């Protein structure tokens, strides 16, 4: 264990952030035999990993960066291996389901906009090939028998799915502990210095030294990254979620804004990529979300709402992940993105081994924060 003032390198890697991104990387490193410390805030943290919508989602991602689409498809395909590994190592079933997901349209205009957006996405140079189909109302109804009469159609992608993200976070933490990793809550990192070939992280409970440091602190990466010669421009957003009482399973495919959890609750949320009606968002968001959800599935109108919350989304300035190693402080990495659930397998099974090896693969070059410098003024 480490104490303030200690001079040796206590850990191979210090991961800053105990949410889904940090925990995925930390678990991935620990199972490779690395000595890992995961520093986290306390229970009062604004924890995006506790407030998220838990989709493993592919369709419509990557407009403006085809590499993000490829990375997301790879994540979706690697998810079963992640779920299997977590189940084997921790006994926790994270309830992964990948039955394919929908984006539903409530007017012909919405459906047309949807089709155009998908065409723009899939016509990009270097775009990965996968199936997303525009379906009419009759075909949608075959798979989602409970849709209401206002649903005119939608898009369907067989790669889409969802998990129980609370169980995922618990499984990653449990897995980290099983591999000898050290969880250190109550350690909000205030400063990072490099001295004697080690990173020294100062926290309210003293200093911790590690040979490498991974910044996975969500929106706080914005202030942490410059401490080690990195940059992580973030634009946090607020998201809101409504949760109903638990009911018998009836919604067998997740919709981008509505899903039924493994435990029977229906979650109604909104998603940045999918904000089809920006004007609508000027009304109280909960009202718009609930109204659209009931028009999509009239049965929802008779369900009791048991809780609602809003959470701060982790969001980079352009919405795409940032993965980078510092050139001025080698051994310092930033790993941050919006989709900590969808990309959990990538972070645990691909990024972690690269960090253990000491270099991010060149194929991840598109995710460097240098893209923000290159913008024409």
């Amino acid at each position: 264990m480490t104490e303030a003032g200690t001079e040796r390198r206590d850990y191979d890697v210090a991961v800053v952030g105990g949410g889904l991104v940090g925990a995925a990387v930390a678990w991935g490193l620990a199972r490779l035999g690395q000595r890992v410390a995961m520093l986290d805030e306390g229970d009062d943290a604004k924890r995006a990993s506790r407030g998220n919508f838990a989709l493993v989602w592919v369709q419509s991602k990557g407009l403006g960066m085809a590499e993000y689409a490829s990375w997301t498809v790879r994540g979706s395909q690697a998810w079963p291996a992640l779920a299997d590994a977590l189940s084997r190592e921790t006994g926790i079933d994270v309830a992964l389901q990948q039955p394919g997901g929908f984006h539903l349209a409530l007017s012909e205009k919405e459906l047309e906009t949807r089709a155009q957006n998908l065409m723009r996405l899939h016509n990009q140079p270097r775009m990965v090939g996968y199936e997303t189909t525009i379906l009419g109302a009759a075909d949608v109804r075959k798979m989602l028998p409970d849709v209401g009469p206002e649903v005119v159609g939608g898009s369907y992608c067989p790669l889409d799915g969802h998990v129980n993200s609370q169980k995922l976070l618990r499984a990653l933490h449990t897995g980290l502990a099983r591999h000898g990793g050290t969880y250190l809550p109550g350690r909000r990192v205030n400063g990072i210095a490099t001295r004697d070939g080690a990173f020294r992280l100062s926290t309210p409970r003293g200093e911790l030294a590690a040979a490498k440091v991974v910044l996975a602190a969500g929106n706080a990466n914005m202030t942490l990254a410059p401490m080690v010669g990195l940059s992580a421009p973030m634009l946090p957003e607020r998201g809101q979620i409504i949760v109903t009482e638990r009911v018998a399973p009836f919604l067998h495919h997740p919709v981008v804004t509505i899903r039924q959890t493994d435990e029977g609750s229906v979650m109604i949320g909104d998603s940045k990529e999918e904000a089809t009606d920006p004007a609508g968002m000027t009304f109280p968001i909960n009202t718009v979300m609930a109204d659209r959800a009931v028009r999509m599935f009239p049965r929802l109108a008779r369900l009791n709402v048991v809780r609602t919350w809003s959470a701060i989304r982790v969001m980079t300035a352009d919405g795409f992940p940032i993965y980078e190693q510092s050139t001025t402080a080698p051994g310092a990495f930033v790993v941050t993105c919006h989709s900590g659930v969808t990309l959990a397998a990538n972070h645990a099974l691909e990024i972690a081994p690269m960090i253990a090896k000491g270099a991010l693969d060149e194929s991840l070059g598109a995710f460097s924060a240098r893209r923000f410098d290159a913008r024409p003024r």
Partner: protein
Amino acid sequence: MLARVDDRHQRTIHISIDGRAVEVRAGDTVATALLAADIAACRISAVSETPRGPYCLMGVCFECLVTVDGVGNRQGCLIEVREGMAIETQSRRREAGR
């Protein structure tokens, strides 16, 4: 069988549980009344269809859901008994809007 820890005099309230007349005490919650009547399972869960009963007794766990005076899925631990109240355990799982 749970036993009450005090013998303070409380007014007796008459309710029914699944049609059976039951005497409880003023100030009891519906969940307490169920437990005092030796009813540990008050509903069937929505997904696994397994028996569930009062657990946290403070409004958090949503396990003690029962039908109270005809309204389904109410949290028994948050409702105080009233004279003539009709409580029904839920032997069928909750369906969405049916």
